[in-house]
């Protein structure tokens, strides 16, 4: 399972590196013909980080590599791949950092736990303020 995926990643990276410039840019800023596919591609783009920019998603970046990553996403969506498997490919390629949608792991758990616990704490603080209905 893991080895073929890794192999695929390496192959894709190699392909991206050697692909002639004209071909690489085919889908960078040209939309997919199917509006549903384009919507899915666009939604994914807004949650993938541009790896050379400062805190921008590839959907809002002028950097060349962001354009290539957009092209990559559109090609894969057009080929029928699911957005989440494309995200997984990017994460494998660039690390968790590339996805703006953190996965729920031990390291990322506080992102949800701290707000949830704070809300509970706030409710507990607020309770004595209320007088019971007579």
């Amino acid at each position, binding site marked *: 399972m893991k080895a073929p995926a890794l192999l695929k990643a390496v192959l894709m990276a190699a392909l991206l590196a050697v692909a002639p410039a004209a071909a690489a840019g085919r889908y960078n800023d040209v939309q997919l013909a199917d509006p549903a596919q384009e919507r899915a591609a666009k939604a994914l783009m807004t949650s993938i980080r541009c790896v050379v920019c400062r*805190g921008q998603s590839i959907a809002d970046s002028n950097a060349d590599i962001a354009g290539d990553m957009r092209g990559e996403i559109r090609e894969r969506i057009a080929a029928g791949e699911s957005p989440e498997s494309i995200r997984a490919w990017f994460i494998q390629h660039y690390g968790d950092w590339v996805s703006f949608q953190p996965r729920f792991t031990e390291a990322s758990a506080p992102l949800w736990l701290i707000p949830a616990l704070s809300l509970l704490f706030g409710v507990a603080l607020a309770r004595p*303020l209320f007088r019971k209905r007579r």
Partner: protein
Amino acid sequence: MIAELGLAALWLGAALALLQLALGALALGTRHAGLQPALPAVAVAQAVLTGIAFLCLVALFMRSDMSVLLVATNSHSAKPMLYKFAGTWGNHEGSMLLWVSILAAGGALVALLERRLPMRTKTATLAAQAAIAIGFYAFLLFSSNPFARLNPAAPDGQGLNPLLQDPGLAFHPPTLYLGYVGMSVAFSFAVGALVTRDVGPGLARAMRPWVLGAWIFLTLGISAGSYWAYYELGWGGWWFWDPVENASLMPWLAATALLHSVTVLATRNGLPAWTIMLSVVAFSMSMVGTFLVRSGILTSVHSFAVDPTRGAFILGLLAVYIGGAMALFALRIGTVQSGSPFEPVSREGALVLNNLLLSGILVVVLVGTLYPLALEAANGTRLSVGAPYFNSSAGPLALLLLLVMAAGPLLRWRRDHPASLAARLAIPVLVLAAALLLVVAFLRPISLLPLLGLVTAAAVGTASLAPLWRRNLARTPLFTWGMVVAHLGCAVSLAGMAADSAFTKEVLVSLQVGETRRVGPYSVTFRQVSEVPGPNWSALDAELLVQRGSQAPFVMHPQSRTFTDPPMETNESAIATAWDGQLYLVVSAPQDDIHYPIRMWWKPFVTLIWLGGIMMALGGGLALLGRVDRDVFGWRRRLAGRAA
């Protein structure tokens, strides 16, 4: 000479702040109470000196004095005068000097205007304001001297980040700083009242105009920043959950909560401890915002300072002030009397819910912004937290908050009956049902969050007008109008956000001259390109002929600008505003000699986002006028009546 004069004035201002704190501390004791009248004079003198220092820096920038290090590294003689002026605070040192100048001015205004609080509380407030200022003076003088000389002088400057050379952004930082500083005054009032054990409606009435004023500036600052990002970054987005945006959103969330709880304290003598706590939190968030932007901890266009010692200094200030305030809070909260009681279904109950939900959203934004930084600092794990996290965590809380906002103003103070609330909400609920039917029938496909947004906006908009029904509009108090306008603004803004995310049409094309494409109701024809020279840039200018239906066609000019000092390319989008939305066009440099990438968006009702922001600020302004009229002049009128 000007630089030396500025530095001397800054040192004197710092010395006066020390004096102000020392006098205040002495005067609060029983033996030297006679010193109290001296404090306002010292506060005013401090503000004047710091103001002089700031004006000196402005003069240095406007004269392009390249023998001053800060000017040489951040300005350029060919820059337009407006950006030489605004460039004063487009850098680390200058913006911190602006911060402390506004802080000192805030202290002076308290000294001059505040007449209702007991003398001791006012003295303690001014001492607290001085204590805050001292930290920032030290930061400026010891680690960020804006007046340092450069010898020999540079032949010319290195220029200002081109993204910042925009009228919107030139006045964005001062607006936010006015908001931050307003929060610092509210905080000083809270500290003063804790010190003198004087927490009550009087404190709330003194604090409220400052909270309202700060909130208005924060609202305007965030709206302006969002619009700047929208047209300047060139991808049609208006909020990116960038840490710098979050840094301005967090104080706003806390200020919004404080604004509502301070009203409970002023009107009903309720929620005293919460109000104090929220004023501590609101100021802390202003400090955290300053820290995030100014310490260089973020890697984003806004972080011009990349010096770890400065970061440590601000972090230290943050720890001292927030820690000190929390300690004082813990020591003195026992002396704060518990407020008047109320039942769950009451105006107070809704406002408590408002406070809880706003605080919940605040924690989401705070954790989402700071946790990745902390995690990376702790063990090097890099994690990205962006729009998917914030939208899915804060979005539902925000929708709930808006529903509470619809019901809150229709509730009575202290106790109310669920059945009568339901009766008052009948029409908004009908509107909600009708909106739901209409959207589902005519506007599909639409995803869940925009659907909820549109429907909620319709219902909340209707409900926000309800406090005016069956009322004599001419005799409705100004602050009630303010509340209605601000709440309606929230609904308008929400409608714009939902419409933009649900109905935007995007067309990305690579066009040759002469080609035509359609986007939304418009047809866009690429007529020609030309080179346009600017003062410190040259631009590729595309001329596009735009026509909607049978209306008269017009021409739009998006540009791709290349700046020389420093070298950088920016997109200048061209935006046409119609009553029902905006057409947004962007051109970039051609891939070959004939094909120009052009991005086109039709964004229905996107303008409502910022219109709502302006309405919120306007509502805040009406409320401020109404409160000042009743709290300040009403009080004087009553006093005059009593004297007569």
